[in-house]
């Protein structure tokens, strides 16, 4: 596995990590509001 495959993979992980954080926080806030 070359370095660019790792970098592209890391960018995917970062992107999905940000999406997951936003969705989890939104879900938590919505649940608290009932």
């Amino acid at each position, binding site marked *: 596995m070359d370095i660019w495959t790792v970098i*592209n993979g890391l*960018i995917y992980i970062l*992107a999905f990590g*940000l999406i997951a954080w*936003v969705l989890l926080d939104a879900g938590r806030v919505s649940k608290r*509001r009932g």
Partner: protein
Amino acid sequence: MSENHESASLVKTLRPFHVWALGVGIVLVGEYMGWNFTVAKGGILGSLLAMLVAGTMYVIISLCASELGAATKLAGGPYDWARLFIGPGAAASVGLAVYMEYIALEAADAIVVAFIAQSIFPELQVFPVTLFVIALLTFINYRGVVAALTLNFFLTMIAFISIVVFFFATAFGGVNIHPEYLFQGALPNGMIGLFAALQFGPWFYLGIEGAAMCAEECKHPSRAVPLGQQAGMITLLVGAAMTLYLCSVLIPADQLGVSVYPLFEAAQNSGMFIFVALLGLGTFLTCVASANGCVCDSSRSWFALSRDNYVSSWFSAVHPRYNTPYRAVIFTMPVAIGFAFSGFLDQVITFSIVSGLLCYVLIPFALIRFRNLFPQNTSTIRPFVSPLQPYIAYFAIAIAITILSTLYWGYKYNLIFAFVFYGIAYFYFSHRHRSLNIENNWTEMGWPLPSGSENTGIRKEVTGIGDE
């Protein structure tokens, strides 16, 4: 006001420089790329004419937007002005037009950022970088409008200063120029080319009206909106003139008309590494700034539509900690990703321009109605009084319709599709709004009843929300 309106409200923290950053941040990308298609159609003279005609229209539009934004102080911008002063059908059409305009631009900007990154590092893939840009900007806008627009301020400032430095270095003899390019490509397609070039004129300024959309989040909207927006318009006029000069004397007209990144190419032709680096950085940063501003504006437009029940009121929730319309912000993400990977990006961008031009017909019309309904020049109703109104508003409508008609050359089907789309939206939402029977009054905004309201019944049509 909707019964489902959430108790938390948008936080009032923005200052005039944030308004400037939002407006110029979205638009400046159009000076780094896109405007040069005017040269392909009408040569250097066609481009100059398009810049001046579109510039005149946008100066008037931004004056109208400043007056309306400072008066209403609402997040929906053009949507709220149409809702208050024209009617529900026009409001829904404008709200959707603004949403589509900005979300399509965001998708385009994210892809361009990915392509620039790939041109620097060829092994990088476009898909993950585009996805990352959209996700990162959604995250920043989710966390707070101040952070998002402060970031925009710095990105935009660097991109604008890059143009200014390059211009002065060229103007004072630091770079070898080719004045003969001006004459070689002055008017390649004759008078018809001048007319056809108008359709790309809006690229110099497309989206500046969105600066007023943060009015509800400004500390002092009566001052911040006119100041930030007019300063933004002056910045863009100066930037447009500098850009046209630089590219015209550094790139032959036949190459300029098809260039992807004209300012960057002009820097490459100067043969000086410092300008290549500066304008390359500027191209990259202005795309990020534009996408960032687009997330902010499209989410506010969707939030405003939701708050008044034009779309599901579920989207009108405000985050209790960050005071952002968090569901509307999140909703920009799947739509932008869908547009970005649809494979029809050029069609999407054209749809964005048609949507913008529809707004440019309806914003001055909303101002004319506003002036008719509220002729009083009191500071409560009209904190900012735009000069020569409503005459210049009629002039702006005439220019917008003229530019819209030039899209018939080359974009006939996009134009027809847009008219059908917004026509259906107009009639659907007019019907839906009547069945919801929402009644509100102007007193919530601290305004008197509009003149002739007993006869027009406009009092019943209007939903007034909050004030400073």
